[in-house]
């Protein structure tokens, strides 16, 4: 099951500069594990130690915010388009 993942500038150090990579997984959590196997360390930038999606990382599946799709349990299907964007936020 292949999905395309768009990587933000800040995380391209993990992907050798690639703006988009392909990955696989039936859920977002599985996809992130798959990516971490090839791009060591990327998972820690997306998922907290207690296993939830980082509050200030936005992930979209086919342009929908995964927070409304089950977060890390969001289901993925072949051909889905996943976009990662760091939140722009502050105080």
């Amino acid at each position, binding site marked *: 099951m292949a999905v395309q993942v768009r990587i933000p500038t800040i995380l391209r150090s993990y992907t050798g500069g690639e703006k988009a990579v392909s990955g696989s997984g039936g859920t977002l959590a599985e996809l992130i594990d798959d990516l971490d196997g090839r791009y060591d360390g990327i998972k820690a930038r997306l998922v907290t130690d207690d296993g939830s999606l980082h509050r200030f990382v*936005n992930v*979209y599946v086919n342009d929908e915010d995964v927070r409304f799709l089950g977060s890390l349990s969001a289901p993925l299907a072949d051909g889905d388009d996943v*976009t990662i*964007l760091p939140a*722009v936020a*502050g*105080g």
Partner: protein
Amino acid sequence: MLRLPADIHDKIVAHARRDHPDEACGVVAGCGGLPERVIEMDNAERSPTFYRFDPIEQLHVWREMEDRDEEPVVIYHSHTATEAYPSRTDIALATEPAAHYVLVSTRDADEAELRSYRIVDGAVTEEPVEILPG
């Protein structure tokens, strides 16, 4: 050094004034490091002490910039009760090392304070702002 056309400076300040006492936030898109197009963003937090770009609006704006070969040259937000200097949260959450982080303080009703910074790996460096006529 941030070279900011006067009309863009005025738009950022006007946005900050309009949303006061909540924080205002937005982007100035451009090519080759030149700030060209002000995009006012919704502050999803609607808060006097915090801001966050609405996630779906951010996705659309980032896609649009990509399609136009633009980058977020400036990321701006306002502080409504304190000086125009990045807060600890601003520094911790900064993720665009190539962007100019612009802060506007609206604490003084008569005088707007606009300052610009680079924020890279937790290090803040203030830079001069040159206002270009036109």
